[in-house]
């Protein structure tokens, strides 16, 4: 079964038990303030992240391996910055030059991307999906005209569909390979051959889910999720505020 990297991993660490609404807020706080941070605070934060992943018993290394596509992309971001940032030249060959500034900013940008992503993964890995959607619903409630319960159900369903889509996509790809579909040269046909069977399959799935929901009396007016603060919320809030302060000032 294709496991998505941001799947919830049950546990009892302090982060697992923290109120999801606060966690949600802290994620936004930390990832936004990080944008203006310099290298040393980022390095310190990365150590903190590793600590929390360990406490939550999530294997960072395995997580990174499952995201290798993303790491490749980070490589591209780094290279793009290297080539496009002007400054004193570090290496120059074939008319292309790499500046010292390009290498350092490129590295910092890629590093921050990685940290933002890992922060997101730490959140989704330690928060029950029901609580993620509960937190979203809670934050949306004050906004008028917004059907926050429907949004919550859509979030939950879309999380349910993701592994199904990945699995079906793999099946379609395998079937194509078995029938030499890879030899198709026409790019339009190639996309249609990959996507159409996938869509047919998952819409069938969706129809079955609709029936299953109806048969269990689905309505939008449902019992609300409940939050149980663990008592450690103030210390986490204080810690994150200090972190954000360090990010912005240093």
């Amino acid at each position: 079964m294709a496991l998505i990297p941001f799947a919830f991993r049950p546990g009892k660490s302090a982060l697992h038990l923290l109120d999801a609404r606060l966690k949600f807020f802290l994620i936004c706080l930390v990832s936004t303030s990080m944008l203006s941070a310099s290298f040393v605070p980022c390095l310190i934060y990365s150590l903190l992240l590793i600590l929390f992943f360990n406490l939550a018993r999530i294997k960072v290394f395995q997580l990174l391996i499952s995201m290798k596509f993303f790491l490749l992309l980070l490589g591209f971001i780094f290279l793009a910055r290297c080539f496009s940032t002007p400054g004193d030249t570090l290496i120059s060959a074939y008319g292309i030059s790499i500046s010292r500034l390009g290498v350092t900013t490129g590295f910092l940008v890629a590093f921050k991307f990685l940290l933002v992503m890992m922060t997101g993964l730490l959140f989704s890995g330690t928060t029950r999906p029901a609580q993620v959607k509960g937190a979203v619903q809670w934050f949306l409630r004050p906004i008028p005209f917004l059907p926050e319960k429907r949004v919550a159900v859509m979030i939950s369903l879309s999380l349910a569909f993701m592994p199904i889509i990945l699995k079906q996509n793999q099946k379609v790809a395998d079937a194509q390979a078995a029938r030499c579909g890879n030899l198709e040269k026409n790019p339009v046909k190639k996309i249609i051959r990959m996507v159409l069977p996938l869509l047919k399959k998952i819409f069938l799935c969706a129809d079955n889910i609709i029936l299953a929901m109806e048969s269990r009396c689905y309505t939008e007016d449902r019992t609300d999720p409940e939050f149980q603060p663990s008592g450690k919320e103030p210390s986490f809030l204080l810690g994150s505020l200090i972190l954000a302060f360090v990010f912005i000032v240093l």
Partner: protein
Amino acid sequence: MNTSNQLKMTVYSALFVALISIGAFIAIPIGPVPIVLQNMFVLLAAILLGPVWGITCIGVYLLIGLAGLPVFAGGTSGIGKLFGPTGGYLLGYLPAVFVTAAISKGLGKKLSGDIIAMIVGSLIVYAVGVPWLKVVTSMTYTKALTVGMYPFIPGDGIKIIAAAYIAKSIRPIIKL
């Protein structure tokens, strides 16, 4: 709208939220560069779900990205990404989906109409995304266009034609 139809649209919209999210990870190798299908699913959501549910779908997608799930392009997430250099493309999905859906509906959900609708929709994404890129990174317009639009046009054309045919075969199955 009766409750049963509302449930159907809720589930189908959720399905497209998932497709758009996963679209950041599904790549089809065409020539030397893999084509990422995320924006094609955005356009398909527009022409299959219609304006209202299309907007809902993109709104929820942006929300789960904001909530920290790595569903934005390249597996990123968060408010920083949404307001970063490429955030304009993400926010541009909102008007793009609405206009694409409206045009497709207005032109009778036909193949040619869908293609026109999706071309307009793609242009709207760039119309929001490129100036945003320019402002956030303080590039010139020429540079913003060269990095943020021109390289993607051929792929977009391919995806639009494919999406139009896909919509044509899917519509009778899902009865939308």
